[in-house]
C-alpha cells in the first residue's frame, strides 16, 4: 500500500465574498461615488465641474498629505498597532522646521532683538523682564541664531530651506522611533503611547509658536516643492497656462508604490503581516518582533515628516493649533475604508489609496453641492461605519 500519492492542488476559482469586499469593494464604491457626484452636480447646478482635470487634480493635491500619512498608518495597522499622534507630529515637525529655518534666515534680527530686550531690562529693572519670546524657546532660539551666525549660515535662504527640510524629517523620524521603542521595548499599548505623543507634540508645537502660526521666511525656495509640479502635456487650464501635476501628488504616488513593494515583496513586509496576524506565533517563528515594530513606527514618523514638509511648503506656514488636526482620524478612516482589518494582519496599500480618494471625492462633492462644511463629519463618519459594516458581512462568510 502506498500512501504517498502526489496530491495536485486543484485550481479552484470560487467566489470569495471576503476577498471580493476587501479588494474590489472600495473601488466599486469610489466609482459609484464619482458617478453620483457627476450626476448630482448636473442635476442641481446644471453644469459640470467635478470631472474637469483641474478639479480632480485639486482633490488629489488636497488629500495627498493625508494620503502620505494614511500609507504609514496602513503599515502600522497591519502590524496590529495604531498611531494617534500623526496629526500632532505633522504640526510639530513642520512647525519646528519652519522655526529653525526662520531662526537661520533672521539670525541677526533675533540677536539684536534679544540684545535690545536685555538692555531694556538692565535700564529699567523695575519694569521686569520682557523678552521677545516666551521661555524656554527664546534662549534656545538666540543660542541657535548665534550658532548660525558663527558658521555664516545666517541670512541665506538656501541654508534655511536645507535646515527646514532636514529638521522636519529628522525630528518626525526620531519621534516615530521613540514611540516605537516605547511600544516595542516598553510594552506600552500603541493606543496609549501614541495618545501621549499626540498631547506632547501638539503642546510643543503650540508653545514654540506661542499659539500662533509658523510663517515661512524662506520665500519661493521653500514653497517650491509644495506648490510646484510637472506640466501635464495636452492639458491647458487657459491657453498658455499648462495644467500641473503637483509635487505632493507625485510624492504620494511614489510613496504608495514604495510601501506596496515593501509590504508585498520584502521580508520586512511579510513580518509586518505576521506580527499583526499573530504576534506570539511571530515570536515563536524567530521573527525579531520588537525590531520590526520599531521600524514600523519609525517609518510612520518619517512619512509624517514628509507630509509636514509638503504641507508647510504648500501653505507657506504651519498653524500650531490647527495644522494636522484630525489627520489621525482621516488616515484611519482611509485605511478602514480601504478594507484593512483594524485588528491587524490583513490589508493593502491600494485599498488605502482608494480610501483616500473616496474621502477626497466626498468632501469635494459636499463642497460642490454647497452642503455645510460642518456636516462633512457626519458624512465621513457614516462612510466609515458603512465600510466597517461591509467588512463584517464579508467576514461572516
Amino acid at each position, binding site marked *: 500500500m502506498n*500512501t504517498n500519492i502526489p496530491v495536485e*492542488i486543484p485550481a479552484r476559482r*470560487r467566489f470569495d465574498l471576503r476577498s471580493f469586499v476587501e479588494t474590489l469593494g472600495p473601488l466599486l464604491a469610489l466609482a459609484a461615488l464619482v458617478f453620483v457626484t457627476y450626476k448630482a452636480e448636473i442635476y442641481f447646478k446644471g453644469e459640470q465641474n467635478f470631472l474637469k482635470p483641474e478639479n480632480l487634480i485639486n482633490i488629489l493635491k488636497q488629500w495627498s498629505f493625508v494620503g502620505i500619512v494614511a500609507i504609514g498608518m496602513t503599515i502600522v495597522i497591519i502590524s496590529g498597532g495604531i498611531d494617534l499622534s500623526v496629526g500632532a507630529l505633522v504640526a510639530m515637525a513642520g512647525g519646528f522646521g519652519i522655526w529653525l529655518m526662520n531662526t537661520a534666515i533672521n539670525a541677526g534680527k533675533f540677536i539684536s532683538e534679544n540684545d535690545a530686550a536685555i538692555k531694556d531690562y538692565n535700564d529699567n529693572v523695575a519694569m521686569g523682564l520682557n523678552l521677545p519670546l516666551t521661555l524656554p524657546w527664546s534662549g534656545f532660539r538666540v543660542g541657535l541664531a548665534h550658532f548660525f551666525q558663527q558658521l555664516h549660515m545666517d541670512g541665506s535662504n538656501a541654508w534655511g530651506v536645507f535646515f527646514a527640510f532636514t529638521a522636519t524629517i529628522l525630528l518626525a523620524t526620531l519621534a516615530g522611533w521613540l514611540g516605537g521603542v516605547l511600544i516595542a521595548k516598553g510594552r506600552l499599548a500603541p493606543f496609549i503611547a501614541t495618545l501621549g505623543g499626540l498631547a506632547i507634540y501638539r503642546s510643543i508645537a503650540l508653545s514654540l509658536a506661542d499659539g500662533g502660526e509658523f510663517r515661512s521666511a524662506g520665500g519661493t525656495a521653500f514653497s517650491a516643492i509644495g506648490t510646484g509640479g510637472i506640466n501635464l502635456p495636452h492639458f491647458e487650464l487657459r491657453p498658455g497656462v499648462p495644467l500641473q501635476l503637483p509635487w505632493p501628488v507625485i510624492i504620494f504616488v511614489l510613496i504608495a508604490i514604495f510601501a506596496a513593494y515593501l509590504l508585498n515583496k520584502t521580508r520586512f513586509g511579510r*513580518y509586518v503581516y*505576521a506580527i499583526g496576524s*499573530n504576534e506570539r*506565533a511571530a515570536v515563536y*517563528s*524567530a521573527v525579531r518582533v520588537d525590531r520590526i515594530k520599531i521600524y514600523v513606527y519609525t517609518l510612520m514618523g518619517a512619512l509624517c515628516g514628509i507630509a509636514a514638509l509638503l504641507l508647510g511648503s504648500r501653505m507657506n506656514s504651519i498653524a500650531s493649533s490647527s495644522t494636522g488636526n484630525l489627520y489621525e482620524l482621516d488616515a484611519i478612516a482611509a485605511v478602514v475604508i480601504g478594507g484593512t482589518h483594524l485588528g491587524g494582519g490583513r490589508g493593502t496599500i491600494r485599498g488605502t489609496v482608494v480610501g483616500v480618494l473616496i474621502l477626497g471625492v466626498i468632501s469635494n462633492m459636499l463642497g460642490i453641492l454647497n452642503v455645510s462644511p460642518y456636516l462633512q463629519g457626519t458624512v465621513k463618519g457614516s462612510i466609515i461605519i458603512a465600510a466597517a459594516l461591509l467588512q463584517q458581512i464579508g467576514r461572516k462568510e
Partner: protein
Amino acid sequence: MICGMPVGQTVDLRDISMQFPAVRALDGVSLSLSRGEVHGLIGENGAGKSTLMKILSGLQRPTSGEILIDGEPVHLHHPIDAQKLGIVMIHQELNLVDELSVADNIFLGREPGGRLWVNGRSMRRAASDLLASLDSPLPPRAKVRSLSIAQQQMVEIAKAVSQQARVLIMDEPTAVLTARETKALFALIERLKQTGVTIVYISHILPEVLHVCDRITVMRDGKIVTTLNDPRGEQVTERKLASLMVGREMSDFFPPRTTPSSEVVLSVKNLSVRGHASDISFDLHAGEILGFAGLIGAGRTEMAEAIAGLRKKSGGRIDVGSALADRLHSSVRQGGPYEEMHSPPVGRDSNPADSSPRNGGIAIPPYILRETKIRSPRDAVAAGIAYLSEDRKAAGLSLDLSIVHNTTLVSLPRFGTAWLSRRREELATRRYVRDLQIKAGRLRDPVRSLSGGNQQKVLLAKWLETSPRVLIIDEPTRGVDIGAKRQIYDQIAALTARGMACILISSELNEVLGLSHRVAVMRGGKIQAILDANEATEQTVMNYAAGVSAP
C-alpha cells in the same frame, strides 16, 4: 424522576443535508439518540461531525432535513432554542468568562435574585450543591482563571446540567486532560447517564471512545458509514474503528523504527528553568526519536521552550553537534546534508518486516559537539533546532496568512531580502503540500480555512523548511484526525531515517510509546527515568509520571 434506565428516542435527526458554497458537508444524514446513552461520534476531520452537531445545537441551519425531539419536529434557529430544549454543546474551546467566579459562570445570564441585584449567597449555595452532586467539589467563589483546564471543563458541565440539559454534546473533551482527569470525567459521564442525560461524545482518541460509549456512529465524507449498536458486546477493536473512519484497512499504526546513529546532535546538561524544570540532562542522537512523557505541568513544554530560546534558562548548558562541513557553511545553512529531506518521504512498506534498506543505513559524518548559547528563537533556528508549539492556533500559525506565507515565515531569508521570490516560495510550499499531503484549496488561501490536521501539517512544513537537525515537536497530533496522524508519523519516521533527531512531547502515551526509541518520563520538572523502547510500557511510564514507586 423516573428510576432505572428509561428507554425511548429523545432526539431524531432525519435526512439532514448541509450544502456549503464549495462542499456538501452533510449528505442525507439520519441519526437517532436514545435517552441516557453515551453515543460516540467519530470520523476524520471534515467528515461532518462538527457540522452535524452545530446543527443539533442550533449554531447552523441545515439545507434540508428535520430534527424531531420526542417525535415532535423542532426548529432550531439559535443556540438558545436548543438550550431551551435541553441540548447543550461543550466546545473544545471552553466558553467561560475568566474573570468571573465559578458560580457566576454556571449561572451566567440566569442569576437568581431580583431585577437589579444578584442573590450571591443563594447562587453560590446552588453552585456548590450542583458541583457536589457531580462529585467535583470546586470552590464556587474561585475565579475561573485560577482553575486548571480540567476544572474549567467541570464548570462547563455543571453549567449544562444546571440548564436541565437532556442532550450534552462533548467535542474532544479529553484532548486537554491528563489520564487521571480523564478518568474523573468518565466517572462523571457515567453519573450523568444514570440520570437520563444523553451524551454525544466526539473524539479522536479511539480507546476512550470504545471505553465510554454505548453506541458509536462512524462518519465519513458527510455520510454515516455505520452505527455500531453494541460495540462492547461485538468486541469492536480500535483498528476496526480506524478502518471504518478511513474507509480502508489500516495496517499497523506506527511506522517501524529505524536504528539511530551514535552521533550526538544535542546534548543538554543540567538545564533548569526557574519554577518549571530543573536539572534536565540528556543526549539526543542523529536519527533518534526521544519521547517525553509526563502529566500536564510536568515541565516538558517549558524545557522545550528553553531549548528553543523562547524561555530564559536559569542554569545548565546546551551543546549542539554538527558536521564539520556544515559548520563551515553555518552562515548560509541552505541546502546542506538535510536538503535531501525534501524528497518524498519513504513512507511505510506494505510489508512491515521489510525495513532493511533504511535500518542502520544512515550515513552521518562525524559530529563535533560545541556549547551553543541559545538566547532567542533566532539562535535556536541558527543552531538547527526547530520547535513546533503545542498551541497551534495561539503560537504556531498566523491564521490570516496564506499557506505559502506560513510555510516560509521562519526561513524567509532563503527567499530573498529586498525582493522575495514568489515562485521559489510557492515551489517550496508545493513540495510540502505533496509530501505531507496537505489538503488545501489554493496555496494563497489563509491557513484559517484548513482543517486541524492540515494546519498541523503546515506547521510541520514551516519548520522542516528550516532544515532542522533537531525537531522538537510538542503534541503533534492534538485535534488531528487519524489519516493526518498517520501521515505526520510517517513523515517524522522518514525524516529521522535520514538523520534528523526528534524530541517528541505528547500526552498520548501510545504515540510516545509507538514512535520513540527512548522515552524520558518527567514529573515535577525533573526527568524521572529514560527508558529504552523495549522496557517502556504504559504501566512503567505511568508509574514514573505519577510518582508511584517503580515495580
